[in-house]
């Protein structure tokens, strides 16, 4: 579709709570005539809509969202991009969002600059009145000070007033309230003192009888707190570097062959099925399958595989990876928002925007803390005004303002999100995708890890090792047995079935046709082959009374860790096929590391006890859950949780989804296919268990970082409240000037952000990553 006039708009949407809301809003939006595509994002509270401006407009879209029951804010400047961006809707949304956050940052910078510039002369005026009387007298002129302080209070401080007002509308108070009230008190009093000096006749700080003014106090507080907010916003945009780097991996153009001609197209115009040309040292634009040519591709940015991977016909390639010295053509399979890269970016963005449970705790604390502080401030004022020394009103005011400002828990709102952003970004760098902040948090408290066997602990590429024909088979050869079994298993997605088919292919044997195919999940498969009913599967499924000799063989093989499948023809067991699946190279080491981290490890498999036991022993796993049918996996996880363990389940996602969802933290291995990502809280992109060790270590480090931040957000502020209230005055004469209070506040913000950024130095304790195996092979299909 090359309609030049499609517009894209990004609408912030309020009120969404879960994915049902997303579906509802999408439905209502899709119903609007002229809407091409509506993409609603829960984590970023926004909807990105592609629409035809000749048939509908933004107002109609806003109405649709409201009809669904939500609030949509029409944007001030709708973006008018034609066609999708580099990674499809993701990049467009991201560009719109980054424009929003860039605008926010620029806005903060402007206000900070204004406040800063105007505060300097005010502070000089303060200096003139106190420590530096040699400075020019006009600096202390009240009217000049009023002139300087007013724009600060009205323009620069406006966000605080807006925030306080919003909170008030919801009948709560927040940090904006504290700042607004504190600075307004200082400013308001100063204005009153200018206009009616006699009313406030006091001894004052200086020789002249005019009441002291606090314009400098108000302005400095505003400046310092704006500084804190600015630094926070800047830190936020920096910590999204991980995402930006991922997005930048995709090139802007691609060379396509269409109708025999070579064209350079913007990447947004590439569609699935296009033939793409890649030359040496170019970045691969989209996901696809190689058609011709040969080269080695560096996939490290996505899979972590440091050695370049050879690509030839029928191999899969991933958009964003770097081609080596050869050149090749490939057929595009996934483009735009469907590429692996786009999905990873989306996932990381959502995780970074999500709320961690611990943050709700912080929010709850803020909810009671702020009213508490207001009460303390009120008491401070009363006590000082009634019982304090002269000038009673001034001192009371000063101390009250100091209390309001010092207690401002601005950094509390920062403490968790900044660490989460850095933590999830760090994870993404190492191929660990956290679906949301909750997973990142929960992973830390895991006590037991359950590992699915096939594809997780093992390569998932079993090979046939033994074929045994029973004595009742009457002259059936090994080859013939394999042939029949393979015919039944042809098209089977089960790794064991695939192993049999592969073996037959390798031997060059032709597969006969099979009809009436029937599968019994976890037990076996059956089909009609050349007039014979053939069954392949467990002993029980396959038929009555497998002969003792065969069973004995099966046991012997199982003791070596083989998985045994029986084959029956027309109801009579005729033989068995044994299959071995090797442990991944890093598995045993990873299990040892997990033990070292204090976790208990269990293996979950459909294999029988003997086979499972052998493999578990090889991997060093102490607990085995064997003979578990796919349908029972979730129940076993539930049982473990009932025992009191906090369970992390690691599986390859496709048939493990219910079990992954039942675990406290579900962890998917492999290439991040839809099912894996949806069911699991964490996805290990690189397909090796070392990633799990890293993920747990990262989770622990992040939570530790968050706790540190929460401490710093509170610590010196709270400790200084008594000082601010003047509790030490009767003993030492110490008071806290509100200016220092604001300074301490900004300092706590800076401390928290710096501490969060420290997390960027996190190093994984696991052994250097083993070459990931499953990932590449998944893409060779």
């Amino acid at each position, binding site marked *: 579709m090359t309609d030049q006039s499609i517009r894209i708009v990004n609408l912030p949407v309020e*009120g*969404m*709570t*879960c*994915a*049902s*809301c*997303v*579906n*509802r*809003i999408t439905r209502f939006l899709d119903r609007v005539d002229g809407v091409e595509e509506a993409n609603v994002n829960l984590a970023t509270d926004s909807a990105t809509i592609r629409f035809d401006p000749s048939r509908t407009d933004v107002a109609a879209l806003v109405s649709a969202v409201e009809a*669904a*029951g*939500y609030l949509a804010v029409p944007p001030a400047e709708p973006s008018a991009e034609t066609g999708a961006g580099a990674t499809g809707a993701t990049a467009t949304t991201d560009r719109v969002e980054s424009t929003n956050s860039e605008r926010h940052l620029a806005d903060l910078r402007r206000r900070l600059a204004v406040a800063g510039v105007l505060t300097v002369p005010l502070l000089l005026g303060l200096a003139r009145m106190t420590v530096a009387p040699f400075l020019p007298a006009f600096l202390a002129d009240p009217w000049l000070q009023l002139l300087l302080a007013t724009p600060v209070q009205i323009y620069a401080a406006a966000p605080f007033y807006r925030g306080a007002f919003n909170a008030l509308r919801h009948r709560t108070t927040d940090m904006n309230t504290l700042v607004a009230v504190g600075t307004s008190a200082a400013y308001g009093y100063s204005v009153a003192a200018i206009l009616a000096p006699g009313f406030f006749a006091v001894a004052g700080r200086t020789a002249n009888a005019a009441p002291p003014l606090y314009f400098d106090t108000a302005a400095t507080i505003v400046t310092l707190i704006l500084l804190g907010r600015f630094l926070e916003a800047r830190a936020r945009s920096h910590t999204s570097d991980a995402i930006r780097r991922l997005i930048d991996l995709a090139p802007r153009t691609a060379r396509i062959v269409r109708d025999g001609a070579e064209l350079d197209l913007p990447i947004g115009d590439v569609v699935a099925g296009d033939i793409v040309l890649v030359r040496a040292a170019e970045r691969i634009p989209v996901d696809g399958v190689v058609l011709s040519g040969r080269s080695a591709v560096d996939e490290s940015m996505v899979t972590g595989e440091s050695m370049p991977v050879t690509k030839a016909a029928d191999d899969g390639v991933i958009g964003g990876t770097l081609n080596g010295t050869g050149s090749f053509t490939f057929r595009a399979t996934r483009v735009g928002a469907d590429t692996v890269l786009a999905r990873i970016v989306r996932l990381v963005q959502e995780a970074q925007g999500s709320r961690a449970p611990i943050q709700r705790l912080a929010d709850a604390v803020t909810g009671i803390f702020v009213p508490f502080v207001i009460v303390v401030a009120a008491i401070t004022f009363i006590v000082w005004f009634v019982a304090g020394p002269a000038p009673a009103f001034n001192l009371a005011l000063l101390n009250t303002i100091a209390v309001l400002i010092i207690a401002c828990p601005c950094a509390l709102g920062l403490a968790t999100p900044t660490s989460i952003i850095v933590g999830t970004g760090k994870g993404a760098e190492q191929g660990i995708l956290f679906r949301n902040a909750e997973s990142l948090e929960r992973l830390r408290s895991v006590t037991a890890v359950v590992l699915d066997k096939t594809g997780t602990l093992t390569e998932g590429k079993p090979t046939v090792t033994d074929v045994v024909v029973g004595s009742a088979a009457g002259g059936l050869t090994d080859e013939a047995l394999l042939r029949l079994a393979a015919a039944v298993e042809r098209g089977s997605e089960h790794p064991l079935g695939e192993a049999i088919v592969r073996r037959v292919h390798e031997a060059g044997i032709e597969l006969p046709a099979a009809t009436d195919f029937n599968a019994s999940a976890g037990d076996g498969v059956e089909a009609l082959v050349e007039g014979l009913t053939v069954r392949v599967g467990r002993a029980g499924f396959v038929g009555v009374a497998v002969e003792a000799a065969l069973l004995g063989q099966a046991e012997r093989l199982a003791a070596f860790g083989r998985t045994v499948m029986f084959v029956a023809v027309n109801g009579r067991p005729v033989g068995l096929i044994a299959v071995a699946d090797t442990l991944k190279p890093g598995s045993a080491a990873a299990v040892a590391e997990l033990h070292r981290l204090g976790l208990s490890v269990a293996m979950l498999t459909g294999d029988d006890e003997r086979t499972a036991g052998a493999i578990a022993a090889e991997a060093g796993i102490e607990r085995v859950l064997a003979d578990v049918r796919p349908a029972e996996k979730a129940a076993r996880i539930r049982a473990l949780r009932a025992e009191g363990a906090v369970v992390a389940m690691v599986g390859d996602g496709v048939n493990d989804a219910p079990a992954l969802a039942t675990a406290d933290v579900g962890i998917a291995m492999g290439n991040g296919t839809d099912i894996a990502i949806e069911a699991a809280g964490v996805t290990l992109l690189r397909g090796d268990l070392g990633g799990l060790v890293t993920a747990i270590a990262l989770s622990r480090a992040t939570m530790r970082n968050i706790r540190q931040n929460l401490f710093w957000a509170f610590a010196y502020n709270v400790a200084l409240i008594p000082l601010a209230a003047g509790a030490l005055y009767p003993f030492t004469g110490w008071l806290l000037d509100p200016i220092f209070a604001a300074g301490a506040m900004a300092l706590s913000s800076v401390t928290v952000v710096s501490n969060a950024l420290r997390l960027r130095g996190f190093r994984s304790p696991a052994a250097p990553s083993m070459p990931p195996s499953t990932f590449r092979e998944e893409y060779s299909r």
Partner: protein
Amino acid sequence: MNQTDQGTLVDPVCGMTVDLAEAEAEGLVLDLDGTTYAFCGRGCMLEFRDDPARFVDPQHRPSM
């Protein structure tokens, strides 16, 4: 309807577990035919109100 432990209910639309007290505080609780339903948010509550029969049906699987 689906009462789990500790004063929580399962949202019949999306399957999320909802704290009953919190839901009540935010007006996200509905009573229908003598049964109390709690919701994770306005969206699910609106979905339910639009077509309660669909979600009350025992065959229905709450999902997102």
